């Protein structure tokens, strides 16, 4: 279901509030299957009122789990073994 | 100094036992409980956060010899308290109780018999306390329980009654199912009437002690029928449910 992909998805919004880099072009290595891909291709599950879950499109492993409550974001990034972000300056 | 039975006590709910699809037994530990007689009841009080209170009476199902107090509650669909007690209350909660209350509708083994117990629906609850007391003290008073229920599944304490009757030749349990019966049912299948009582009750000459409990229409009909059959009114004790509602 392509409407779940992070690319072009409003769900990227909450992630942009937490990260200062461009999330959709960052590359992740999945802790579940070991594949590396652009985060933009990952599948987003917006659980209305509860949180945002971003999953590897290859194996469904949860890459990012995000919740927001009482003025704080809580992030679980254990599903990402390694995250690669363009160094804008370099 | 208030009488101890007018004091509200905070009981701990230690067990909740489903008896039938609509009935549950609440097993309570009541601090300072001073004991009761079979047939008595307690008042239960619920308080909402804004102070609103609702209060109802429930017969005690446990024998005076039991360590814990047991109430058996029938859920009335449009009730205010019984849906709370059967669907919201759970183990670990507390419940305000007061009692025991009632001196008239009570039986102790030394009062003798023969003992005729007639109950409709949850009217069997105080009668069960009497039967449990009778078993606890090893009484051999000849006893008959005539219990009216809507269906087989709605017979409260069915298995325990089978058990008690199976090992006690002096106890007979007779059921009548008024709304539906299992295919193999060979027992009574109508409301209790004079004809049924004539078959089940002892003759007036044997001077049974009768306790009748249940919905008001049943109690009035049975009471009248027993007196009509010649039983002394003074030996027929009645307790009507329904005056204060669910």
């Amino acid at each position, binding site marked *: 279901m392509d409407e779940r992909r992070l690319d072009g998805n409003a769900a990227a919004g909450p992630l942009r509030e937490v990260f200062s880099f461009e999330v959709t072009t960052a590359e992740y290595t999945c802790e579940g299957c070991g594949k590396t891909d652009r985060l933009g291709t990952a599948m987003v599950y917006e*659980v209305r009122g*509860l*949180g945002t879950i971003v999953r590897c499109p290859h194996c469904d492993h949860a890459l990012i789990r995000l919740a927001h409550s009482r003025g704080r974001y809580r992030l679980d990034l254990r599903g990402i073994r390694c995250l690669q972000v363009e160094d804008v300056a370099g | 100094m208030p009488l101890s039975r007018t004091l509200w006590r905070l009981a701990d709910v230690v067990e909740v036992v489903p008896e039938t*699809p609509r009935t549950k037994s609440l097993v309570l530990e009541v601090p300072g409980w001073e004991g009761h007689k079979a047939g008595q009841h307690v008042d239960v009080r619920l*308080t909402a956060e804004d102070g609103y209170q609702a209060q109802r009476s429930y017969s005690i199902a446990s024998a005076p010899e039991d360590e814990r107090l047991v109430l058996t509650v029938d859920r009335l669909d449009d009730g205010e308290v019984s849906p709370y007690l059967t*669907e919201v209350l759970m*183990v670990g909660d507390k419940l305000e109780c007061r009692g025991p209350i009632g001196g008239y509708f009570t039986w102790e083994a030394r009062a003798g018999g023969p003992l005729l117990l007639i109950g409709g629906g949850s009217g069997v609850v105080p009668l069960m306390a009497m039967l449990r007391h009778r078993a606890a003290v090893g009484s051999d008073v000849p006893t008959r329980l005539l219990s009216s229920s809507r269906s087989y599944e709605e017979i409260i304490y069915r298995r325990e009654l089978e058990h008690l009757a199976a090992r006690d030749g002096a106890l007979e349990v007779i059921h009548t199912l008024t709304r539906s019966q299992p295919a193999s049912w060979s027992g009574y299948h109508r409301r209790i009437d004079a004809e049924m009582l004539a078959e089940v009750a002892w003759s007036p000459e044997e001077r049974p002690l009768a306790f009748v409990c249940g919905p008001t229409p049943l109690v009035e009909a049975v009471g009248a029928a027993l007196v009509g059959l010649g039983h002394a009114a003074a030996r027929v004790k009645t307790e009507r449910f329904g005056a204060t509602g669910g």
Partner: protein
Amino acid sequence: MREGFISRGFGGRRRRPDTQLPPGQYLEDGFPVLSAGPTPRTPLEAWDFSVVGEVDEPKRWTWEEFKRLPSEEITRDIHCVTKWSKLGTRWEGVSVDTLLEGVETAAEYVTAFCDGDYTTNLPLEDVTGGKAWVVYAYEGEPLEPIHGGPARLLVPHLYFWKSAKWVRGLRLIADDIPGFWESLGYHNYGDPWREQRYWGD
């Protein structure tokens, strides 16, 4: 304020029709589907339910065996932490007391584990004593996958995220381990009547 112990969860008749709603909740007619991942589609032949962990003997049932266990009809109100409540929802399933019958344990906590990666944690005493079921029918029909079918946990006295969908077993554990939402800041216990939505509530 009148004297009297406040009875947990009692609203009284005057409050109908919004009867007995926990604080902050509203009445919902539909049945919202909230999902944190793809809907699992485990075929019944592959399905089983286990009781594992700190037990002397683990237990396991296939679907056939599970359906033969004594079951009950359960009618309860349910309350989601996202503020909707549904009253009088009707389920059919097996009491957790039945599943734990004969189980010897010193564990005080339980993790419900599921198809997908969902987990939730509860004190053992909150799933025993007639408070929890593993249900496989809703309103008289087999439970749909989007609502957690073939079977889900049902623990109506806590926020509904504790009623784990696609449940496959219970692991009894000595030390509590926060589950999927609990580890993201949701309250470890989750009593709707005390509005325990987040850690620190």
